[in-house]
């Protein structure tokens, strides 16, 4: 029981650290730092919101305000939202545009032709990638110090997770349309940071791929993530969550309610996802729901 309480406190601490606003100051060499930044990608949105000085970030993408996707949806209300149209972003007169490497790229190349500086960030597949992107964002925004502090917090969080890991348990991510994540995904990095094994990688899935319900049932993982998304309207993509076989899996395995927003993008909030997984692992051991192998 004590372990559970302690890890819950760890969780709260991590959340606090992740969202703690560090004294926002423009560093000495800030003359070159951009003053009007527009971000068009959910992941750059969140890193920019965490690192930018007040007034420096002008607009973020509309997804940043969607609580289903963004870990900082509340924060995003403070910025103008864009939908990534070239015309819209150009008229904002940004001196730096942030974008992902695979989203809205025609917009980004048009903005570049119009003479606007565009910096693209690749999606992260590991915590090294996350740290690298944080540091790069820090350099671009002239906020190196805050970025370094954030990376240090991240590394400390990862060490804490590693020291309190429960070994030998398997976790399956199971999303709409029966999709799961495998090797080379950020989810995998988070799962490993929590000291767990990802079922998707065991099955040889790379990136994201379909996990047929039948295979989920037969490989019965110790933990299943069940952040069943709630949309305004139903779709067949979510019917897998009400399938009797899936309900039976939920009865047999420990569930971990990891919000999708905590591991779609890289950032300090990934630690929250890992902590939820680790709590689920501890609960699985206590309730005897993990399978003896």
């Amino acid at each position, binding site marked *: 029981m004590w372990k559970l309480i302690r890890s819950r406190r760890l969780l709260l601490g991590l959340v606090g650290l992740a969202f703690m606003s560090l004294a926002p100051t423009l560093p000495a060499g800030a003359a070159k730092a951009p003053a009007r930044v527009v971000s068009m990608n959910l992941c750059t949105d969140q890193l920019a919101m965490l690192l930018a000085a007040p007034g420096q970030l002008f607009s973020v993408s509309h997804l940043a305000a969607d609580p289903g996707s963004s870990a900082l949806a509340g924060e995003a209300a403070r910025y103008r939202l864009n939908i990534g149209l070239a015309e819209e972003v150009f008229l904002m007169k940004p001196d730096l545009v942030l974008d992902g490497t695979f989203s809205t790229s025609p917009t980004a190349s048009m903005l570049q032709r119009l003479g606007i500086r565009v910096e693209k960030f690749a999606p992260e597949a590991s915590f090294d990638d996350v740290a690298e992107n944080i540091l790069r964002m820090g350099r671009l925004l002239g906020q190196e110090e805050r970025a370094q502090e954030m990376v240090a917090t991240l590394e400390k969080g990862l060490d804490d997770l590693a020291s309190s890991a429960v070994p030998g348990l398997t976790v399956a991510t199971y999303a709409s349309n029966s999709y799961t994540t495998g090797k080379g995904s950020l989810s995998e990095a988070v799962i490993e940071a929590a000291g767990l094994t990802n079922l998707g990688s065991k099955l040889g899935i790379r990136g994201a791929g379909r996990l047929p319900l039948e295979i989920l049932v037969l490989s019965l993982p110790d933990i299943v993530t069940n952040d069943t998304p709630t949309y305004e309207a139903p779709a067949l993509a979510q019917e*897998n969550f009400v399938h009797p076989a899936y309900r039976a899996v939920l009865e047999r395995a420990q569930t971990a309610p990891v919000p999708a927003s905590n591991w779609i993008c890289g950032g300090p909030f990934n630690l929250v996802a890992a902590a939820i997984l680790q709590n689920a692992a501890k609960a699985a051991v206590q309730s005897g729901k993990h399978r003896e192998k």
Partner: protein
Amino acid sequence: MRASAYAILLAALSGLVVLTFVGSLLIGPSDLGMAGSLEGLFSTETSLAQLVMYEIRLPRAVLGLMIGVTLGLSGAVLQGFLRNPLAEPGILGISSAAALGAVLAIYTGLSAFFPLALPLAGLAGAFVAVLLIRALTGANGSTLTLILAGVAVSAFAGAASTLVLNLSPNPFAATEILFWMLGSLTDRSMTHVWLAGPFMIIGWIMLASLARPLDTLTLGSDAAATMGINVGKLQSFAVFGTAASVGAAVSVAGAIGFVGLVVPHVLRPLVGSVPSRLLPASALGGAIVLLTADILVRLIDPGHDLKIGVLTAMVGAPFFLWLVYRSRRNEL
């Protein structure tokens, strides 16, 4: 054709239905294997294999069987009733219209509160389409007007479904037009069997009762009327039977094309072109084709949920072209 030869044909078709049904139960993405599958099916202990067999593979195989019967039977009835070799629920737009009904029921959230709304809406869509086709082509419509009416109904229903899916606030909805246009049996559950099954069975009974009257109808509707066939009753049974069975089938598995076209054509020479003999044979043949196609989608590309309609169209569309070519030659 002698009765004994016909009995042999039906026995052979039944044997193939059993074979493909068992095949459908034994084949899946996991490495459960044949022994594991059988153990899951017959073991009295609760196990994960049992869960897979009863909640995932059995509903899939049962739906494959029932939807195959529906498509084969309705295709044979429509071809006899409309006296047109190109009639089929998919080509006439009946499947697309049923899909539109089902799309409206699901994506507005109606079926979440009232599950029966799903097959009922599919039925309503199919019903409207059959009536529309009938009204557009008249009693003795030519092949051309029938096909054109089908194209128009299909196009309209497809566009309306796409519109409903695009307007849905659910980000996944728009991509699901693939399911409704091509059909799939992946991860359907017993819930779908219970929802759609009764409507399909009612539809089959109505369609099967047309076997004898359709024999008489081959002489022409006037001749049939003088021989005591109630043409009005025949018509309403054909319309309701098709609407109920096809509407329910489409509402749980999407529109799967060409099965109703190909199966009766392949079997017609084997039964001596007698409608009353063609109906049972087509029902069995439809089940064989659909179960086989559903096994193939699992074998060809297990990881990607290949839509079953892709396979049936690959075989059916060239066959359709050949039929069009042949009917043109006959008209010249």
